[in-house]
């Protein structure tokens, strides 16, 4: 379930005016920005951008980019974009890093629905004049590249049907590969990158039933093995994405300092999806509410925005 609290009746013109007022003149009224944008869903945010453009002949996003700074600016920028556009930006940022954030690519390709992933690919082309797969291929190599390109270009069947016989045979194939430590086996990649999500979950369940441990456990290994890390992330995302996101949040807050990139990314991309469930999971596993942990580890307007997106009442 989503965490953000967006009213059903909204005046986009009024919102645009408030935002304009917040940016005009000396300084910026960040609280006003948070109180409006933090309580609007994607469709509404889009309308506000249009209304703002019409009223003031200016791109709201560009204006906010220039007025704001730091972690707060990055969070607002990601929040205000269309989900597909946002994912395209996240993917591009991840790819272009000196040491690409491959897990972000895996995350996007494995936790979005097939249609959503297609929308991301379209948005990516519109923005960067390249296909997502071209850019992924250009910045990776070997088996990692093969796996990532296949994940990113997948258009999985979205139905609920499960073929038990297939689940059994493919669970066996996966196990054989794991046993022989041939993780980059063609068949492993085939199964993980082409089967529907429901079919994969059935396969993973069968795997656990047959071998007493989840496949993710069996994929733990040499942390220097890039391919294995990417493979494991893919399996975790496909198998239980909420658990995966909870872990990312946990890791982003736990260490010395905070991984704002990861924290922002998860909160912003899940706030309208299943952040509520992720929150509950977090609480269960860490004995402290996610809001509390975030409040302790962040500050200022950045903190205020994150807490709003987490569903905190003003």
């Amino acid at each position, binding site marked *: 379930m989503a965490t953000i609290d967006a009213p059903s009746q909204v005046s986009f013109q009024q919102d645009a005016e408030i935002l304009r007022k917040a940016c005009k003149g000396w300084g910026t009224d960040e609280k006003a920005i948070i109180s409006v944008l933090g309580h609007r869903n994607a469709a509404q945010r889009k309308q506000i951008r249009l209304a703002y453009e019409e009223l003031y002949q200016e791109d709201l996003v560009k204006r906010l980019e220039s007025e704001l700074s730091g972690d707060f600016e990055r969070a607002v920028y990601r929040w205000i974009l269309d989900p597909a556009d946002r994912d395209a930006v996240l993917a591009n940022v991840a790819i272009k890093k000196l040491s690409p954030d491959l897990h972000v690519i895996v995350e996007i390709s494995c936790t979005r629905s097939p249609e959503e992933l*297609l929308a991301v*690919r*379209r948005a990516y*082309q519109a923005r960067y*004049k*390249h*296909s997502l*797969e*071209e850019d992924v*291929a250009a910045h990776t190599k*070997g088996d990692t*590249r*093969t796996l990532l*390109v*296949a994940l990113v*270009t*997948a*258009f*999985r*069947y*979205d*139905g609920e*049907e499960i073929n038990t016989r297939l689940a059994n045979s493919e669970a066996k194939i996966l196990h054989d590969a794991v046993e022989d430590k041939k993780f980059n086996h*063609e068949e492993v990649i*085939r199964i993980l*990158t*082409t*089967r*529907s999500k429901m079919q994969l979950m059935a396969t993973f369940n069968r795997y656990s039933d047959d071998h007493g441990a989840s496949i993710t456990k069996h994929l733990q290994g040499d942390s220097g093995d890039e391919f294995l890390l990417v493979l494991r992330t893919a399996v975790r995302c496909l198998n239980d994405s909420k658990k995966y996101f909870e872990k990312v949040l946990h890791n982003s807050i736990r260490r010395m300092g905070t991984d704002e990139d990861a924290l922002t990314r998860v909160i912003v991309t899940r706030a309208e999806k299943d952040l509520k469930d992720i929150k509950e999971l977090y609480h269960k596993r860490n004995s402290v509410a996610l809001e509390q942990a975030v409040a302790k580890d962040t500050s200022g307007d950045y903190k205020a925005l994150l807490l709003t997106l987490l569903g905190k009442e003003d």
Partner: protein
Amino acid sequence: MHPWERDARFLKKALKKGPPQYNVIVEIACTRSSDQLLGARKAYHSLFNRSIEEDLAFHIKGSERKLLVALVSAYRYEGSKVKEDTARSEAKALLNAINNGDKRKIVEDDEVVTILTARSKPHLKEVYDQYKKLSNKTITEDLEVELLLKETVECLCTPQTYFTKIFDAALRDDANEGAKKALTRLVATQKGGEIKEVATKFEEQIEERVKGAYKDVLVGVLAKEG
């Protein structure tokens, strides 16, 4: 039947018939626009409750698997922007792979497959041109033996040549069923433009040799706005 549904059914049939028909998979994946190919994939979901890539990956065990799965999964950028130096270095990579062809099946070469399945068509046409400068032969000439790859390059880089071949084969005196089917498949789903240009060259032959409803279809293609 909607063109997407038709393409989905063509793909299914080609897969069922096996290796002699894999060129149909190449043709559909390479001659359709990005959105048309996407549409065919969606139609495939609806019709067969599986994704096309699932079925291809599962049933094709040979060396062509990688290429074919990647071809149907492509969603190519359709803008005209092309980087000449990237195209040149990729032409070099292809030349390299072809020259080392005896050591490793070219169709399984990751570099080759990636270039052919991820790059945009305008970019690949540039790669084709750059290759000719490097090798004095065209990629298609150098790929004589690797039929599937040859057809991939032809459909992507020189579609006119490909279409001409199809028309030619279908309108000959001794044209067989397969050749005629290939033409039907082509005209049924391609819009005007490139195919109309080719069809115009065969106008006379169409007038002479073709009869009935089939002729109407072909005449229709000629008449369509480009």
